[in-house]
Protein backbone atom coordinates (compact mmCIF):
# COMPACT_ATOMS: atom_id res chain seq x y z
CA UNK A 1 0.00 0.00 0.00
CA UNK A 2 3.09 2.19 -0.37
CA UNK A 3 2.90 3.14 3.25
CA UNK A 4 -0.20 5.22 2.96
CA UNK A 5 -0.78 4.51 6.59
CA UNK A 6 2.51 6.13 7.40
CA UNK A 7 1.20 9.35 5.95
CA UNK A 8 -1.40 9.45 8.66
CA UNK A 9 1.23 10.13 11.21
CA UNK A 10 3.44 12.23 9.00
CA UNK A 11 0.89 14.99 9.05
CA UNK A 12 0.02 15.03 12.69
CA UNK A 13 0.80 17.78 15.12
CA UNK A 14 -0.52 19.37 18.30
CA UNK A 15 -2.97 16.77 19.54
CA UNK A 16 -4.30 15.99 22.97
CA UNK A 17 -6.77 13.20 23.73
CA UNK A 18 -9.32 11.20 21.80
CA UNK A 19 -12.84 12.34 22.42
CA UNK A 20 -14.99 9.62 23.98
CA UNK A 21 -12.14 7.32 24.88
CA UNK A 22 -10.60 5.74 27.96
CA UNK A 23 -6.85 6.27 28.42
CA UNK A 24 -4.82 3.06 28.44
CA UNK A 25 -1.22 4.18 28.44
CA UNK A 26 1.17 6.96 27.58
CA UNK A 27 4.43 5.71 26.15
CA UNK A 28 7.64 7.68 25.91
CA UNK A 29 9.30 6.85 22.63
CA UNK A 30 12.81 7.48 21.35
CA UNK A 31 12.05 9.74 18.42
CA UNK A 32 9.41 11.32 16.25
CA UNK A 33 7.65 8.75 14.16
CA UNK A 34 5.38 8.57 11.19
CA UNK A 35 4.66 4.85 11.36
CA UNK A 36 3.74 2.69 14.35
CA UNK A 37 2.16 -0.73 14.76
CA UNK A 38 0.46 -1.88 17.95
CA UNK A 39 0.41 -5.62 18.60
CA UNK A 40 -3.06 -7.22 18.64
CA UNK A 41 -2.82 -7.92 22.38
CA UNK A 42 -1.82 -4.33 23.04
CA UNK A 43 1.39 -5.34 24.79
CA UNK A 44 3.94 -4.24 22.25
CA UNK A 45 4.57 -1.30 19.99
CA UNK A 46 6.83 -1.22 16.95
CA UNK A 47 7.82 2.34 16.25
CA UNK A 48 9.64 3.51 13.14
CA UNK A 49 11.63 6.70 13.43
CA UNK A 50 12.12 9.12 10.60
CA UNK A 51 15.70 7.88 10.28
CA UNK A 52 14.17 4.46 9.46
CA UNK A 53 15.33 2.77 12.66
CA UNK A 54 12.62 0.66 14.24
CA UNK A 55 12.22 0.44 18.01
CA UNK A 56 10.16 -2.31 19.59
CA UNK A 57 8.80 -1.30 22.97
CA UNK A 58 6.97 -3.02 25.78
CA UNK A 59 3.86 -0.90 26.31
CA UNK A 60 3.49 -1.75 30.00
CA UNK A 61 6.96 -0.97 31.32
CA UNK A 62 8.05 1.12 28.32
CA UNK A 63 11.24 -0.90 28.02
CA UNK A 64 12.92 -0.86 24.64
CA UNK A 65 13.15 -4.48 23.54
CA UNK A 66 14.93 -4.25 20.23
CA UNK A 67 16.28 -1.66 17.83
CA UNK A 68 16.42 -2.49 14.13
CA UNK A 69 19.03 -0.37 12.36
CA UNK A 70 18.22 2.15 9.66
CA UNK A 71 19.91 0.21 6.88
CA UNK A 72 18.57 -1.45 4.82
CA UNK A 73 15.45 0.08 6.36
CA UNK A 74 12.11 -1.32 7.44
CA UNK A 75 9.18 -0.32 5.26
CA UNK A 76 6.39 -2.51 6.63
CA UNK A 77 5.57 -4.17 9.93
CA UNK A 78 2.95 -6.71 10.96
CA UNK A 79 2.13 -8.71 14.07
CA UNK A 80 0.45 -12.08 13.90
CA UNK A 81 -3.14 -12.07 15.16
CA UNK A 82 -2.11 -13.69 18.46
CA UNK A 83 0.70 -11.18 18.89
CA UNK A 84 3.30 -13.95 19.04
CA UNK A 85 5.18 -13.01 15.86
CA UNK A 86 6.45 -9.82 14.33
CA UNK A 87 7.27 -9.57 10.63
CA UNK A 88 9.43 -6.86 9.13
CA UNK A 89 9.51 -5.96 5.43
CA UNK A 90 12.59 -4.13 4.22
CA UNK A 91 13.31 -1.66 1.45
CA UNK A 92 15.72 -4.14 -0.13
CA UNK A 93 13.03 -6.83 -0.46
CA UNK A 94 14.07 -8.85 2.58
CA UNK A 95 11.55 -10.15 5.09
CA UNK A 96 12.31 -11.08 8.68
CA UNK A 97 10.08 -12.85 11.18
CA UNK A 98 10.83 -12.77 14.88
CA UNK A 99 9.18 -14.12 17.99
CA UNK A 100 7.68 -11.15 19.78
CA UNK A 101 8.86 -12.66 23.09
CA UNK A 102 12.55 -12.90 22.37
CA UNK A 103 12.53 -10.67 19.30
CA UNK A 104 15.23 -12.93 17.94
CA UNK A 105 14.70 -13.47 14.21
CA UNK A 106 13.56 -16.98 13.38
CA UNK A 107 13.33 -16.50 9.62
CA UNK A 108 15.03 -14.08 7.28
CA UNK A 109 14.88 -14.31 3.52
CA UNK A 110 14.94 -12.37 0.28
CA UNK A 111 11.36 -12.24 -0.95
CA UNK A 112 11.80 -9.76 -3.78
CA UNK A 113 14.15 -7.31 -5.41
CA UNK A 114 11.60 -4.63 -4.58
CA UNK A 115 10.52 -2.89 -1.42
CA UNK A 116 8.10 -4.84 0.78
CA UNK A 117 4.89 -2.85 1.16
CA UNK A 118 2.58 -5.39 2.78
CA UNK A 119 2.87 -8.22 5.29
CA UNK A 120 -0.02 -10.30 6.59
CA UNK A 121 0.11 -13.26 8.96
CA UNK A 122 -2.18 -16.24 9.00
CA UNK A 123 -3.37 -16.99 12.56
CA UNK A 124 -0.99 -19.94 12.93
CA UNK A 125 1.94 -17.61 12.40
CA UNK A 126 3.37 -20.10 9.89
CA UNK A 127 2.04 -18.56 6.70
CA UNK A 128 2.84 -15.01 5.69
CA UNK A 129 1.52 -13.04 2.75
CA UNK A 130 4.14 -10.71 1.31
CA UNK A 131 3.37 -7.82 -1.01
CA UNK A 132 6.36 -6.31 -2.81
CA UNK A 133 5.85 -2.97 -4.59
CA UNK A 134 4.23 -3.41 -8.01
CA UNK A 135 4.80 -7.16 -8.09
CA UNK A 136 2.73 -10.30 -7.62
CA UNK A 137 1.73 -11.17 -4.09
CA UNK A 138 3.51 -14.07 -2.41
CA UNK A 139 2.43 -16.76 0.02
CA UNK A 140 5.32 -17.98 2.19
CA UNK A 141 5.27 -21.15 4.24
CA UNK A 142 7.39 -20.70 7.36
CA UNK A 143 6.92 -24.15 8.86
CA UNK A 144 10.58 -24.80 8.01
CA UNK A 145 12.98 -22.94 5.79
CA UNK A 146 10.86 -20.19 4.16
CA UNK A 147 9.26 -21.65 1.06
CA UNK A 148 7.25 -19.83 -1.58
CA UNK A 149 3.94 -21.70 -1.53
CA UNK A 150 2.09 -19.64 -4.14
CA UNK A 151 2.06 -16.39 -6.04
CA UNK A 152 -0.97 -14.15 -6.29
CA UNK A 153 -0.83 -12.44 -9.69
CA UNK A 154 -2.26 -9.12 -10.83
CA UNK A 155 -2.77 -7.66 -14.28
CA UNK A 156 -0.27 -5.01 -13.25
CA UNK A 157 1.04 -3.46 -10.06
CA UNK A 158 1.08 -5.09 -6.66
CA UNK A 159 -0.99 -5.93 -3.61
CA UNK A 160 -2.72 -3.27 -1.57
CA UNK A 161 -4.56 -5.34 1.02
CA UNK A 162 -5.68 -8.82 1.93
CA UNK A 163 -7.92 -10.49 4.49
CA UNK A 164 -8.37 -14.08 5.59
CA UNK A 165 -11.80 -15.53 6.34
CA UNK A 166 -12.38 -16.54 9.98
CA UNK A 167 -12.32 -20.24 9.02
CA UNK A 168 -9.05 -19.70 7.15
CA UNK A 169 -10.38 -21.13 3.89
CA UNK A 170 -10.58 -17.96 1.82
CA UNK A 171 -8.13 -15.17 1.22
CA UNK A 172 -9.39 -12.00 -0.44
CA UNK A 173 -6.72 -9.92 -2.13
CA UNK A 174 -6.92 -6.34 -3.44
CA UNK A 175 -4.53 -5.31 -6.19
CA UNK A 176 -3.40 -2.10 -7.81
CA UNK A 177 -5.37 -3.27 -10.85
CA UNK A 178 -8.52 -2.55 -8.74
CA UNK A 179 -9.70 -6.17 -8.87
CA UNK A 180 -10.59 -8.10 -5.69
CA UNK A 181 -9.66 -11.76 -6.01
CA UNK A 182 -10.78 -14.71 -3.89
CA UNK A 183 -8.35 -17.58 -3.29
CA UNK A 184 -8.88 -21.04 -1.88
CA UNK A 185 -6.11 -21.27 0.72
CA UNK A 186 -5.80 -25.03 0.31
CA UNK A 187 -5.04 -25.02 -3.41
CA UNK A 188 -4.17 -21.34 -3.87
CA UNK A 189 -6.40 -21.34 -6.95
CA UNK A 190 -8.40 -18.19 -7.59
CA UNK A 191 -12.06 -19.02 -7.17
CA UNK A 192 -13.88 -15.69 -7.60
CA UNK A 193 -13.28 -12.06 -8.36
CA UNK A 194 -15.02 -8.72 -8.15
CA UNK A 195 -14.30 -6.17 -10.89
CA UNK A 196 -16.79 -3.55 -9.79
CA UNK A 197 -14.15 -1.24 -8.35
CA UNK A 198 -12.81 1.53 -10.56
CA UNK A 199 -10.35 2.67 -7.92
CA UNK A 200 -7.93 0.83 -5.68
CA UNK A 201 -8.91 -0.88 -2.44
CA UNK A 202 -6.47 -0.24 0.41
CA UNK A 203 -8.15 -2.08 3.30
CA UNK A 204 -10.12 -5.32 3.64
CA UNK A 205 -11.78 -7.08 6.57
CA UNK A 206 -14.02 -10.12 7.06
CA UNK A 207 -16.96 -9.94 9.42
CA UNK A 208 -16.68 -12.34 12.36
CA UNK A 209 -19.28 -14.71 10.86
CA UNK A 210 -17.30 -14.86 7.63
CA UNK A 211 -20.31 -13.97 5.53
CA UNK A 212 -19.25 -10.53 4.43
CA UNK A 213 -16.11 -8.74 3.37
CA UNK A 214 -15.69 -5.02 3.85
CA UNK A 215 -13.52 -3.04 1.46
CA UNK A 216 -12.34 0.55 1.71
CA UNK A 217 -10.06 2.53 -0.55
CA UNK A 218 -9.69 5.37 -2.98
CA UNK A 219 -13.46 5.71 -3.44
CA UNK A 220 -13.59 6.82 0.23
CA UNK A 221 -16.44 4.52 1.16
CA UNK A 222 -16.96 1.14 2.77
CA UNK A 223 -18.24 -1.44 0.31
CA UNK A 224 -19.90 -4.52 1.76
CA UNK A 225 -19.45 -7.69 -0.30
CA UNK A 226 -20.91 -11.17 -0.10
CA UNK A 227 -17.93 -13.25 0.99
CA UNK A 228 -19.11 -16.42 -0.69
CA UNK A 229 -20.31 -14.96 -3.99
CA UNK A 230 -17.88 -11.99 -4.31
CA UNK A 231 -20.87 -9.78 -5.13
CA UNK A 232 -21.25 -6.20 -4.03
CA UNK A 233 -24.11 -5.93 -1.52
CA UNK A 234 -24.11 -2.26 -0.59
CA UNK A 235 -21.98 0.82 -0.23
CA UNK A 236 -21.87 3.23 2.69
CA UNK A 237 -21.67 7.00 2.16
CA UNK A 238 -18.37 8.36 0.86
CA UNK A 239 -16.19 11.03 2.44
CA UNK A 240 -15.52 13.19 -0.57
CA UNK A 241 -11.98 14.40 -1.16
CA UNK A 242 -10.39 11.63 0.86
CA UNK A 243 -9.70 7.92 0.76
CA UNK A 244 -9.73 5.05 3.24
CA UNK A 245 -6.37 3.59 4.24
CA UNK A 246 -7.35 1.51 7.28
CA UNK A 247 -10.44 -0.43 8.22
CA UNK A 248 -10.91 -2.43 11.44
CA UNK A 249 -14.03 -4.26 12.59
CA UNK A 250 -14.81 -4.48 16.28
CA UNK A 251 -17.62 -4.98 18.78
CA UNK A 252 -21.13 -6.23 18.26
CA UNK A 253 -23.00 -5.01 15.26
CA UNK A 254 -20.18 -4.81 14.20
CA UNK A 255 -18.69 -1.35 14.00
CA UNK A 256 -16.05 -0.39 11.50
CA UNK A 257 -13.28 2.06 12.29
CA UNK A 258 -11.90 3.79 9.23
CA UNK A 259 -8.99 6.15 8.73
CA UNK A 260 -9.14 8.61 5.87
CA UNK A 261 -6.44 10.61 4.17
CA UNK A 262 -7.00 13.74 2.15
CA UNK A 263 -6.46 12.79 -1.49
CA UNK A 264 -4.17 15.75 -2.11
CA UNK A 265 -2.29 15.29 1.15
CA UNK A 266 -3.02 18.85 2.22
CA UNK A 267 -5.49 18.24 5.05
CA UNK A 268 -4.91 16.20 8.21
CA UNK A 269 -6.13 12.61 8.28
CA UNK A 270 -9.24 11.76 10.24
CA UNK A 271 -11.07 8.72 11.52
CA UNK A 272 -14.69 7.63 11.76
CA UNK A 273 -16.54 4.76 13.40
CA UNK A 274 -19.37 3.33 11.33
CA UNK A 275 -22.37 1.44 12.61
CA UNK A 276 -22.82 -1.01 9.75
CA UNK A 277 -26.46 -1.66 10.58
CA UNK A 278 -27.60 1.96 10.49
CA UNK A 279 -24.84 3.17 8.12
CA UNK A 280 -24.31 6.12 10.44
CA UNK A 281 -20.91 7.26 11.59
CA UNK A 282 -19.26 9.39 14.23
CA UNK A 283 -15.92 11.14 14.03
CA UNK A 284 -13.05 9.54 15.92
CA UNK A 285 -12.36 12.59 18.04
CA UNK A 286 -12.34 16.12 16.77
CA UNK A 287 -8.99 17.23 18.12
CA UNK A 288 -6.78 14.29 17.21
CA UNK A 289 -6.70 11.35 14.91
CA UNK A 290 -5.37 7.82 15.13
CA UNK A 291 -1.85 7.11 13.98
CA UNK A 292 -2.12 3.42 14.76
CA UNK A 293 -4.65 1.09 16.28
CA UNK A 294 -5.61 -2.48 17.02
CA UNK A 295 -8.64 -4.44 18.04
CA UNK A 296 -7.72 -5.74 21.50
CA UNK A 297 -10.24 -8.10 23.08
CA UNK A 298 -12.86 -6.86 20.61
CA UNK A 299 -12.28 -3.30 21.77
CA UNK A 300 -10.82 -0.67 19.52
CA UNK A 301 -7.54 0.72 20.77
CA UNK A 302 -6.24 3.83 19.16
CA UNK A 303 -2.90 5.50 19.48
CA UNK A 304 -1.69 8.92 18.64
CA UNK A 305 1.91 9.94 18.24
CA UNK A 306 2.88 13.45 19.21
CA UNK A 307 6.60 14.11 19.25
CA UNK A 308 8.18 11.63 21.64
CA UNK A 309 4.91 10.66 23.28
CA UNK A 310 2.43 8.07 22.19
CA UNK A 311 -1.00 8.01 23.79
CA UNK A 312 -3.02 4.81 23.70
CA UNK A 313 -6.73 4.94 24.45
CA UNK A 314 -9.68 2.60 24.19
CA UNK A 315 -12.56 3.85 22.09
CA UNK A 316 -15.79 3.90 24.11
Amino acid at each position, binding site marked *: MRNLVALVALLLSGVSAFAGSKPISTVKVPCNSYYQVLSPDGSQLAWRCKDRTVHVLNVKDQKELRVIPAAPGVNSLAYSSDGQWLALGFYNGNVEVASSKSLEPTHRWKASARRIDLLYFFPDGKTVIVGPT*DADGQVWDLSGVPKLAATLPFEFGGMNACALSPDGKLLVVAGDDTVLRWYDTKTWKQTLENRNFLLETFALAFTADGKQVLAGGADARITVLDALAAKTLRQLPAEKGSYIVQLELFGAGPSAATVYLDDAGGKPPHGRVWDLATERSVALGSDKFPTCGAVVGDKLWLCNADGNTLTIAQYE
Partner: protein
Amino acid sequence: MNFTRRELLERCAAFGVLTLAKATPVAALAAAWEEAQKMRPTPYCELGPFYKRDAPHILTLRAPGDAGMPLTLSGVVHNTRGEVVPDAKVEIWQTDNDGHYDIEGYRYRTLLTPGPKGSYAVESVMPGHYPDRVCQHVHYLTTAPGHKPLITQLYFATDPVFEGNPDKNYTRDPLITGRELVRPVVIKGDPKQMIAAVTFDLVLETL
Protein backbone atom coordinates in the same frame (compact mmCIF):
# COMPACT_ATOMS: atom_id res chain seq x y z
CA MET B 1 11.21 -6.80 -50.32
CA ASN B 2 11.86 -6.58 -46.59
CA PHE B 3 14.35 -8.78 -44.81
CA THR B 4 14.89 -9.33 -41.16
CA ARG B 5 18.40 -8.75 -39.87
CA ARG B 6 18.91 -12.49 -39.66
CA GLU B 7 17.77 -13.02 -43.29
CA LEU B 8 19.96 -10.16 -44.47
CA LEU B 9 22.99 -11.62 -42.75
CA GLU B 10 22.31 -15.04 -44.21
CA ARG B 11 21.97 -13.63 -47.72
CA CYS B 12 25.08 -11.51 -47.38
CA ALA B 13 27.02 -14.53 -46.25
CA ALA B 14 25.58 -16.65 -49.06
CA PHE B 15 26.60 -14.12 -51.71
CA GLY B 16 30.03 -13.62 -50.23
CA VAL B 17 29.35 -9.98 -49.30
CA LEU B 18 30.07 -10.85 -45.73
CA THR B 19 33.01 -13.00 -44.84
CA LEU B 20 32.47 -15.12 -41.82
CA ALA B 21 35.09 -16.69 -39.67
CA LYS B 22 34.69 -20.45 -39.68
CA ALA B 23 33.87 -20.51 -36.02
CA THR B 24 31.16 -17.84 -36.30
CA PRO B 25 27.89 -19.26 -37.52
CA VAL B 26 25.40 -16.87 -39.05
CA ALA B 27 22.95 -17.48 -36.24
CA ALA B 28 25.45 -16.42 -33.59
CA LEU B 29 26.44 -13.35 -35.55
CA ALA B 30 22.81 -12.40 -36.04
CA ALA B 31 22.11 -12.87 -32.36
CA ALA B 32 25.12 -10.70 -31.45
CA TRP B 33 23.99 -8.03 -33.87
CA GLU B 34 20.46 -8.05 -32.53
CA GLU B 35 21.75 -7.85 -28.99
CA ALA B 36 23.89 -4.86 -29.89
CA GLN B 37 20.94 -3.16 -31.55
CA LYS B 38 18.66 -3.64 -28.55
CA MET B 39 17.15 -0.60 -26.95
CA ARG B 40 16.98 -0.28 -23.20
CA PRO B 41 13.50 -0.83 -21.81
CA THR B 42 11.93 2.27 -20.29
CA PRO B 43 12.73 2.23 -16.57
CA TYR B 44 10.02 1.14 -14.20
CA CYS B 45 8.76 3.76 -11.77
CA GLU B 46 6.17 2.77 -9.24
CA LEU B 47 2.45 2.97 -9.91
CA GLY B 48 1.47 4.95 -6.84
CA PRO B 49 -2.10 5.41 -5.69
CA PHE B 50 -4.96 7.00 -7.65
CA TYR B 51 -4.99 4.77 -10.70
CA LYS B 52 -8.55 4.58 -12.04
CA ARG B 53 -9.80 1.83 -14.30
CA ASP B 54 -11.82 2.44 -17.51
CA ALA B 55 -10.39 5.83 -18.43
CA PRO B 56 -11.96 7.26 -21.58
CA HIS B 57 -10.15 7.44 -24.91
CA ILE B 58 -9.61 11.18 -25.25
CA LEU B 59 -6.82 13.14 -26.87
CA THR B 60 -7.40 16.51 -25.23
CA LEU B 61 -7.34 16.42 -21.46
CA ARG B 62 -7.27 20.14 -20.82
CA ALA B 63 -10.49 22.08 -20.92
CA PRO B 64 -10.78 25.74 -21.91
CA GLY B 65 -9.83 27.92 -18.95
CA ASP B 66 -7.89 25.19 -17.12
CA ALA B 67 -5.00 26.60 -15.13
CA GLY B 68 -1.45 25.73 -16.10
CA MET B 69 0.82 25.82 -19.09
CA PRO B 70 -0.55 23.75 -21.95
CA LEU B 71 1.44 20.57 -22.43
CA THR B 72 1.72 18.21 -25.37
CA LEU B 73 2.89 14.72 -24.51
CA SER B 74 3.91 12.49 -27.39
CA GLY B 75 6.02 9.48 -28.17
CA VAL B 76 6.26 6.10 -29.78
CA VAL B 77 5.67 2.68 -28.26
CA HIS B 78 8.12 0.05 -29.42
CA ASN B 79 9.92 -3.01 -28.23
CA THR B 80 13.59 -3.41 -27.40
CA ARG B 81 14.33 -4.23 -31.06
CA GLY B 82 12.87 -0.88 -32.07
CA GLU B 83 9.82 -2.43 -33.67
CA VAL B 84 6.37 -0.94 -33.30
CA VAL B 85 4.35 -2.87 -30.75
CA PRO B 86 0.94 -3.73 -32.18
CA ASP B 87 -2.22 -3.33 -30.11
CA ALA B 88 -0.51 -1.37 -27.35
CA LYS B 89 -2.57 0.61 -24.88
CA VAL B 90 -1.18 3.63 -23.08
CA GLU B 91 -2.95 4.87 -19.97
CA ILE B 92 -1.93 8.30 -18.77
CA TRP B 93 -3.03 10.05 -15.60
CA GLN B 94 -1.83 13.10 -13.73
CA THR B 95 -2.92 15.84 -11.38
CA ASP B 96 -4.33 19.11 -12.60
CA ASN B 97 -2.15 22.18 -12.32
CA ASP B 98 -3.09 22.53 -8.65
CA GLY B 99 -1.84 19.06 -7.79
CA HIS B 100 -5.21 17.33 -7.46
CA TYR B 101 -6.07 13.95 -8.94
CA ASP B 102 -9.65 13.59 -10.09
CA ILE B 103 -10.98 10.64 -8.12
CA GLU B 104 -14.66 11.06 -8.83
CA GLY B 105 -14.35 11.63 -12.57
CA TYR B 106 -11.76 11.19 -15.29
CA ARG B 107 -10.21 14.65 -15.62
CA TYR B 108 -6.61 14.29 -16.78
CA ARG B 109 -6.99 10.59 -17.36
CA THR B 110 -6.96 8.87 -20.74
CA LEU B 111 -6.50 5.52 -22.40
CA LEU B 112 -4.73 5.87 -25.76
CA THR B 113 -4.34 3.35 -28.55
CA PRO B 114 -1.26 4.28 -30.59
CA GLY B 115 -1.61 4.21 -34.37
CA PRO B 116 0.08 1.86 -36.86
CA LYS B 117 3.39 3.65 -36.39
CA GLY B 118 3.13 3.26 -32.64
CA SER B 119 2.84 6.97 -31.99
CA TYR B 120 0.67 8.65 -29.39
CA ALA B 121 -0.01 12.28 -28.52
CA VAL B 122 -2.20 13.95 -25.95
CA GLU B 123 -2.91 17.56 -25.01
CA SER B 124 -2.76 18.33 -21.30
CA VAL B 125 -1.39 20.89 -18.85
CA MET B 126 1.72 20.84 -16.71
CA PRO B 127 0.78 18.87 -13.58
CA GLY B 128 1.10 20.55 -10.21
CA HIS B 129 3.15 19.72 -7.17
CA TYR B 130 1.41 18.22 -4.15
CA PRO B 131 2.59 17.67 -0.58
CA ASP B 132 3.26 13.94 -0.71
CA ARG B 133 5.46 14.02 -3.79
CA VAL B 134 8.61 15.91 -4.58
CA CYS B 135 8.33 16.36 -8.33
CA GLN B 136 5.70 17.07 -10.96
CA HIS B 137 5.00 13.85 -12.80
CA VAL B 138 2.71 12.02 -15.21
CA HIS B 139 1.82 8.36 -14.68
CA TYR B 140 2.01 5.86 -17.54
CA LEU B 141 0.73 2.31 -17.71
CA THR B 142 1.49 0.69 -21.06
CA THR B 143 0.30 -2.78 -21.95
CA ALA B 144 0.48 -4.87 -25.11
CA PRO B 145 -0.07 -8.54 -25.91
CA GLY B 146 3.12 -10.55 -25.47
CA HIS B 147 4.87 -7.78 -23.54
CA LYS B 148 5.47 -7.02 -19.88
CA PRO B 149 3.24 -4.23 -18.60
CA LEU B 150 5.28 -1.05 -18.23
CA ILE B 151 4.53 1.03 -15.16
CA THR B 152 6.42 4.28 -15.14
CA GLN B 153 6.31 8.01 -14.55
CA LEU B 154 7.46 10.93 -16.67
CA TYR B 155 9.23 13.88 -15.03
CA PHE B 156 10.10 17.32 -16.37
CA ALA B 157 13.63 18.69 -16.67
CA THR B 158 12.16 22.13 -15.96
CA ASP B 159 10.86 21.09 -12.53
CA PRO B 160 12.14 23.69 -10.03
CA VAL B 161 13.17 20.82 -7.76
CA PHE B 162 16.06 20.08 -10.15
CA GLU B 163 17.30 23.69 -10.03
CA GLY B 164 18.13 23.57 -13.72
CA ASN B 165 20.41 20.56 -13.35
CA PRO B 166 18.43 17.32 -13.59
CA ASP B 167 21.63 15.35 -14.24
CA LYS B 168 22.82 16.23 -10.78
CA ASN B 169 19.56 16.61 -8.93
CA TYR B 170 17.13 14.03 -10.27
CA THR B 171 17.62 11.85 -7.20
CA ARG B 172 16.00 14.53 -5.06
CA ASP B 173 12.80 12.66 -5.75
CA PRO B 174 13.54 9.19 -4.35
CA LEU B 175 10.99 7.63 -6.65
CA ILE B 176 12.84 8.59 -9.84
CA THR B 177 14.53 5.39 -10.91
CA GLY B 178 16.48 6.70 -13.88
CA ARG B 179 17.68 9.97 -15.36
CA GLU B 180 16.00 9.08 -18.66
CA LEU B 181 12.59 9.50 -17.02
CA VAL B 182 13.32 13.22 -16.67
CA ARG B 183 12.47 14.57 -20.10
CA PRO B 184 13.47 17.83 -21.74
CA VAL B 185 10.69 20.37 -22.15
CA VAL B 186 10.53 22.23 -25.46
CA ILE B 187 8.62 25.50 -25.38
CA LYS B 188 6.66 26.16 -28.55
CA GLY B 189 4.21 28.80 -29.74
CA ASP B 190 4.37 32.54 -29.43
CA PRO B 191 5.08 34.36 -26.17
CA LYS B 192 1.37 34.89 -25.50
CA GLN B 193 0.42 31.26 -26.04
CA MET B 194 3.33 29.12 -25.08
CA ILE B 195 2.98 25.36 -25.12
CA ALA B 196 5.32 22.90 -23.47
CA ALA B 197 6.09 19.81 -25.50
CA VAL B 198 7.60 16.65 -24.12
CA THR B 199 8.53 13.51 -26.01
CA PHE B 200 8.49 10.26 -24.08
CA ASP B 201 9.06 7.06 -26.04
CA LEU B 202 8.04 3.86 -24.33
CA VAL B 203 10.17 0.75 -24.80
CA LEU B 204 8.48 -2.50 -23.76
CA GLU B 205 10.10 -5.81 -22.97
CA THR B 206 8.69 -8.98 -24.44
CA LEU B 207 7.38 -11.65 -22.10
